[in-house]
């Protein structure tokens, strides 16, 4: 029983991370019908900025004196940086292609994904970059399973982020404008909503969440790598599709499910093949129920 509980805890932690990344995919697809291939790399960049910030603070002795502050600073810097990165990405690779064929957009996104991951390799090297071993220890016992402090932090942190997103999207003017643009871009323009600004906002929010996920992964697994965005990126996209592309709640649920499936399948079935399960789910969902669990939410006026 405690194995089951342990797996659940691990699955929820991983799921929370996937959910954060999946939100970025689903929001961008919802508003401009593009699979942002480079989103995984933004997640990786977040992880890098986190470790760069934390090592800097550690070397300067700041981290010892104010660990919590340092941690939050790392998150903030990562999210801030990735927002910039995402805006640049959109301006350079996606905006000029608005209205072009899907293939062109996809290839542009793919090109940027390759460019970013290799760019990070050139800047930071091919080896893993280790996170400072500051926050990793400690945890407590729940019914025979152990839940570490880090796991609690990740779960609570992602919940806070997701709730904030929810409030933003459902209760604020800008958030509703984003949803409006995703549902009917032309009509939103007629109402005075500037599509460009809304789209940029979407990218910024998605990137911030992915950045946070990147820092969390770095803290949780202890290190980051330039190519760490590739496979989690695909899995997070699978999660977004599973939940219903364009649907925010769907992305959150999908992320959780993919995380749980991965941990359980690795634990009870075959751990070498754990990456395969997310792909299989993706293929099954797209074949049998392409609208996902919660249903698609996209501007379908575009052919």
């Amino acid at each position, binding site marked *: 029983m405690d194995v089951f509980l342990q797996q659940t805890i691990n699955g929820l932690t991983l799921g929370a991370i996937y959910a954060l990344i999946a939100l970025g995919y689903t929001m961008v697809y919802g508003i401009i019908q593009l699979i942002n291939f480079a989103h995984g790399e933004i997640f990786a960049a977040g992880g890098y900025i986190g470790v760069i910030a934390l090592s800097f603070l550690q070397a300067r002795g700041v981290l010892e004196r104010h660990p919590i502050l340092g941690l939050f600073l790392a998150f903030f810097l990562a999210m801030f940086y990735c927002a910039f990165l995402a805006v640049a990405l959109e301006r350079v690779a996606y905006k000029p292609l608005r209205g072009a064929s899907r293939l062109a957009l996809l290839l542009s996104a793919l*090109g940027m994904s390759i460019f970013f991951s290799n760019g990070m390799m050139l800047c930071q090297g091919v080896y893993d970059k280790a996170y400072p071993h500051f926050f990793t220890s400690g945890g407590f016992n729940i019914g025979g399973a152990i839940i570490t402090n880090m796991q609690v932090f990740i779960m609570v942190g992602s919940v806070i982020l997701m709730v904030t997103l929810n409030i933003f999207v459902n209760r604020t003017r800008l958030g509703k404008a984003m949803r409006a643009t995703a549902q009917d871009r032309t009509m939103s323009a007629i109402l005075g909503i500037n599509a460009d600004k809304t789209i940029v906002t979407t990218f910024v929010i998605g990137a911030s969440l992915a950045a946070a996920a990147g820092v969390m992964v770095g803290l949780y697994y202890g290190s980051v790598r330039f190519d760490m965005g590739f496979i989690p990126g695909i899995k997070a996209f699978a999660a977004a599709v599973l939940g219903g592309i364009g649907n925010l709640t769907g992305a959150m649920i999908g992320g959780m499910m993919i995380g749980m499936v991965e941990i359980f399948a690795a634990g009870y079935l075959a751990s070498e093949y754990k990456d395969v399960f997310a792909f299989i789910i993706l293929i099954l969902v797209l074949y049998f129920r392409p609208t996902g669990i919660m249903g698609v939410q996209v501007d379908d006026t575009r052919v």
Partner: protein
Amino acid sequence: MMKKPLKFIVFLIWAFILLFPMLAVNEGQFVWDRLLKVMGVLAFGGILVMAYNAAMKGRSLKSAMFKGGLPFKVPKKVMIWTGIVIVLILPWVTDNYAKDVAINVLIYIALGLGLNIVVGLAGLLDLGYIAFYAVGAYTYALLNTQYGIPFWVALPMGCLISALAGTVIGYPTLKMRGDYLAIVTLGFGEIIRIVLNNWDKVTQGPNGVLGIKAPSIYYPAIGDGGFQFAQLYMKNLTWLYYLILVLALITMAAVNRLNYSRIGRAWMAVREDETAAELTGIHTTRMKLFAYILGAIFAGVAGAFFAAKVRYVNPSSFVFLESALVLCIVVLGGMGSIPGIVLGAAAIIVLPEMFRGLELYRMAAFGGAMTFMMVFRPEGLIPAKHKRPETDVGDVPLEEGRGRAES
């Protein structure tokens, strides 16, 4: 007039902001040399471009590069015949290194042509193409090492298995919409790689399969005792070069015929507008599957050859990056254009060899180039010339969405 320099300065500021944390922070210190180097290169490059534009007064670099053709005029026939001669005599005038490079180029040409059928002709976004290459390679590898089957017998078997793989993967996925198809094919490609890496019993896992025999031919020889057949293993690079050359030429011929055939036109119709194609009586699902399977077969053949040449296969040759590379070749060279693909394959293999020191920058450059091409010249380096009787001259198959009213 003042806009360009202003834009450039904004660009430099952005570059600085984005590069600073990645390049200039090391533990507790700020290290400026790498960042300044990169900023210097960017600034210098940008100034060069702007100076060129100013000097050319109206014929900007962009328009010169992308609307014109080659910078010099050579009669077509001379170019073609020179090319043919070079290709034919290559093994006799170069060393092993060059031959190896040439063989690699030809392999990628074959792959590019195969993917071109899927992506360029039929418009299916396949990001997992390398999986079929792997299937072909491993089929020959295993048939040869486990059962001693020689190359020429294994080749048709490999084709069959590749076709089977194409059917199995293609059937469920081809119903999906464009971008989803891309992700799913990527997923399949990864699944195959992971399986190859982990199914130790059959595929030897990450260790790979060793001891594959090269293709062999029998030739009549006079030996002691009279007339008999001797076996020659084509381990020699020269033999291999001609073999892959023949394979590549067959692929080229096949693609060329397909381009102008009814099937080819059906594929193009599906690519342009699937619903319309369905309405004119084209069995879109069947056609898409056929394109997919055909592409798989070409990749399988190339894969079998690859296994025979290198005589060792392991999963790391078949990573997603390879799929992306082949896609780059097709897209950068010009979708559906055979000379474009040849040029693309040559560029992607030869350029990094020439600039050995810059090898690390290779993939980053290709990624950037792919985006760059999509934004500025989606038709590729050498655009395909399709017959489009109902519209005007020129073919920019990727631009069909532009210029429409915002609606």
